[in-house]
């Protein structure tokens, strides 16, 4: 219906319209596992006929969404749909690699990558989201590899074989996709190196923090940083690009909790996944130090940072408030009667 592009060629897959024989192939390769991944029974007897599969495909073709059959090695292996919402700027993605011979081999990731290029470049969408059964780990991994991030878990959203199951919501924004373009593994196209901090990086790190409006304090002197790194478990990573320090993250460990501080990316280098890389490296470094959780403090007004962390799976603890008292500073003397 909405089809404006009829075929899209990838490295290994071809998107094309449905054609004669697809429904029969779809019925031939069908397994109960496929039904289960769509939230249906894993154990119920029976399998669909070619005619039933044909009706399924007709439903997709008349649903008003952009849709393609997926072909690999010259045969039908599945289909995908992208429904553009009423706002005409966001889309819902659904996919089925139906032939199990093509599972676990990166086909889903390639399909998602081609679909996203179509969604963002051809259709000009702002955002693409999807909903997956939480137990569909293979699917979730491939969406993540394609750049989708988990945005939420819908608890006990549907029932399968008598058990309540969760759904996962995932989404990717156009700006995030642009930052990853050209690299199916999700690294920024430009060359970023993440490495350990060296003493000579200090002026550049301070300049970066100032450019990022971070408040500097006594802990940020070269001496304090060197002392902390030599006496406490932790790490200080910098992101280097174009020969410059463009990002930082400092990590520490306290009773199994990893803390992240000084996560900053230079304003000129944002929106290309550097903060995401730094967070990933920090989490891995925390795990290597034995931490079971990564935590951070962020300013209430800094909504951009919060959105980044939430998109990365971080949750707000509403039950905790931060309390503090300034020590040894009574110069103002307001409370000391004399």
């Amino acid at each position, binding site marked *: 219906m909405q089809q404006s592009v009829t075929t899209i060629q990838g490295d290994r897959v071809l998107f094309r319209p449905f054609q004669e024989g697809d429904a029969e192939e779809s019925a031939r390769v069908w397994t109960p596992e496929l039904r289960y991944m769509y939230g249906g029974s894993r154990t119920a007897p029976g399998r669909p006929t070619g005619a039933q599969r044909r009706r399924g495909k007709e439903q997709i073709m008349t649903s008003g969404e952009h849709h393609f059959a997926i072909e690999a090695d010259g045969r039908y292996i599945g289909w995908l749909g992208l429904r553009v919402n009423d706002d005409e700027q*966001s889309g819902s993605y659904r996919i089925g690699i139906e032939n199990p011979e093509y599972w676990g081999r990166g086909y889903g990731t390639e399909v998602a990558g081609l679909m996203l290029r179509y969604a963002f470049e051809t259709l000009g969408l702002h*955002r693409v*989201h999807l909903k997956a059964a939480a137990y569909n780990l293979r699917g979730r991994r491939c969406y993540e590899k394609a750049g989708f991030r988990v945005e939420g878990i819908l608890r006990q959203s549907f029932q399968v074989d008598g058990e309540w199951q969760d759904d996962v919501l995932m989404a990717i924004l156009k700006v995030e996709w642009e930052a990853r373009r050209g690299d199916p593994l999700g690294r920024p196209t430009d060359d970023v190196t993440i490495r350990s901090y060296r003493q000579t990086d200090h002026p550049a790190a301070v300049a970066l923090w100032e450019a990022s409006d971070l408040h500097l304090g006594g802990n940020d002197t070269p001496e304090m940083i060197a002392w902390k790194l030599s006496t406490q478990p932790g790490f200080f990573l910098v992101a280097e690009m174009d020969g410059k320090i463009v990002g930082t993250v400092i990590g520490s460990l306290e009773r199994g909790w990893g803390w992240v501080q000084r996560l900053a990316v230079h304003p000129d280098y944002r929106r290309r996944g550097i903060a995401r890389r730094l967070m990933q490296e920090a989490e891995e470094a925390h795990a290597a130090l034995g931490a079971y959780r990564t935590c951070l403090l962020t300013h209430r007004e800094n909504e951009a940072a919060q959105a980044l962390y939430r998109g990365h799976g971080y949750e707000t603890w509403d039950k905790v408030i931060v309390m503090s008292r300034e020590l040894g500073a009574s110069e103002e003397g307001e409370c000391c009667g004399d």
Partner: protein
Amino acid sequence: MSETRVTLGPITEEYLPQYVVWLNDPEVVQFTTVCAGTITSEGEREWFARISAADPRERHWAIVAEGRHVGSCALMPHPTQAQASFGIIIGDKSAWGKGYGAAALREVLRIAFAEMDLHRVHLTIFPENERGRRCYARCGLRQEGYLRESFCKEGTWLDQIAMAILREEWEAQQCSSQ
């Protein structure tokens, strides 16, 4: 503790002019997906015809507090799953801050779980809607997701928060409040 009470009644045609006024008030629709200034009498009549003819499981109510019509709310069941989404608007600004929204939601949750036998009720809310979030949290809804730039209102992309309550959580609430 005396609980605020509201009555949920059917939406009748007489209410429509009131909705046109409310939904065009920027203050009333600030935290909703509605754009003030876009609601016409014809549009409301079409909406009324649509909800009157919709899936009978879809429920729309007028909220009446102390004999006054103060707003409306709705429960939209999923076509195949035992869950529904909830939406509410308190249009009468003099009725704000009196707990009528929470009272209406409590009544809707009772209908959803005790009468319609649903398993979960969910909604989305804009993060800036602090009062709404507090109200929903008090009624037992929990945050389940944060949807980035998921709704475009008047040219601006807004984030949304997804919240939900499960039947078992609602049941536990009933026990503890007795």
